[in-house]
């Protein structure tokens, strides 16, 4: 068996998960191959890290800190519940007032334009009557 094939099985060999036949083949290869033995040693040392770091000692103040956080949450919660109902109702009311106000202003504006007759004539200024272009050009010259 070549090293590439053996490498695929080494982690299972380490965990005793290989069938008996495969285990014997891997063992035989390891007896002869330094590179595979070295890689197995690396795998073993890496997996060993898990054993070393798991189950750390929990801080003796764990429950004290947890209790403090729990108290904070419980104090905040009743206010939070009040806000959760009142806040949306308040903003909905503001929105309704805004829409009503906008409609009211709009309807007043349309009423004033339709009822009021146009009484004022806007005098358009006729520059040509005030100053003919010929006199303007003659002055320039």
């Amino acid at each position, binding site marked *: 068996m070549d090293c590439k094939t053996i490498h695929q099985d080494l982690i299972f060999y380490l965990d005793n998960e290989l069938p008996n036949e495969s285990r014997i083949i891997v063992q035989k290869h390891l007896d002869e191959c330094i590179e595979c033995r070295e890689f197995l040693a690396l795998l073993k040392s890496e997996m060993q890290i898990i054993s070393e*770091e798991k*189950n750390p000692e*929990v801080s003796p103040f*764990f*429950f004290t800190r947890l209790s403090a956080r729990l108290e904070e949450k419980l104090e905040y919660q009743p206010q939070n519940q009040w806000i959760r109902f009142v806040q949306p109702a308040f903003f909905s009311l503001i929105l309704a007032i805004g829409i009503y106000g906008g409609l009211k202003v709009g309807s007043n504006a349309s009423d004033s334009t339709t009822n009021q007759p146009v009484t004022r004539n806007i005098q358009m200024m006729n520059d040509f009557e005030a100053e003919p272009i010929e006199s303007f050009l003659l002055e320039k010259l």
Partner: protein
Amino acid sequence: MDEIQLIKGVQQGDRKSFQLLVEKYQQMVVNTCLGMVHNKADAEDLAQDVFLEVFRTAENFRGDAKLSTWMYRIATNRSLNFIRNTKRKGFFQSFEEAFTGGRNRNNEITNNSSDQPDKNITDQQRSTLLHQAIDKLPEKQRVAFTLNKYEELSYQQIAEIMEISLASVEFLIHRAKKNLQKKLYECYKKKCI
């Protein structure tokens, strides 16, 4: 106090029951979170979040599964959320660094006061290598591997926690080990440690 009485007490808001529950399961929850996030301080913070959620949602616990199964589920979900949030923050940080050209070295704390500095560096490198390899696993493989290796749970227990079949758990752990081995072999070839 057995599990049923404990959870009933917590459902009624009894602090004594909650304290007993925390004392009974804190090691388990912290260890599970540690396996996922590889940092003890973060693991303890996450464990606290888990217990707060247990207190808040205790009334939802119907007793269909064991209390520990339920707590493992909350712990792994919380840990996964934490990992996703950290990755997102990391992405924006590296984006910022690309523009500012700087690198935040505040997080790079070295504390090597041992008489054998070389040995500690090697241990640290080994640890970092393993954590990076585990971090690269897909989420489900990571959860299954962590529960198997850190909590030494059986495949059946993992199947109940993850709500998948036994065959799926076997497949996930098999793939996780293969992927880990591949990452470690790449490092071995490059002689990184």
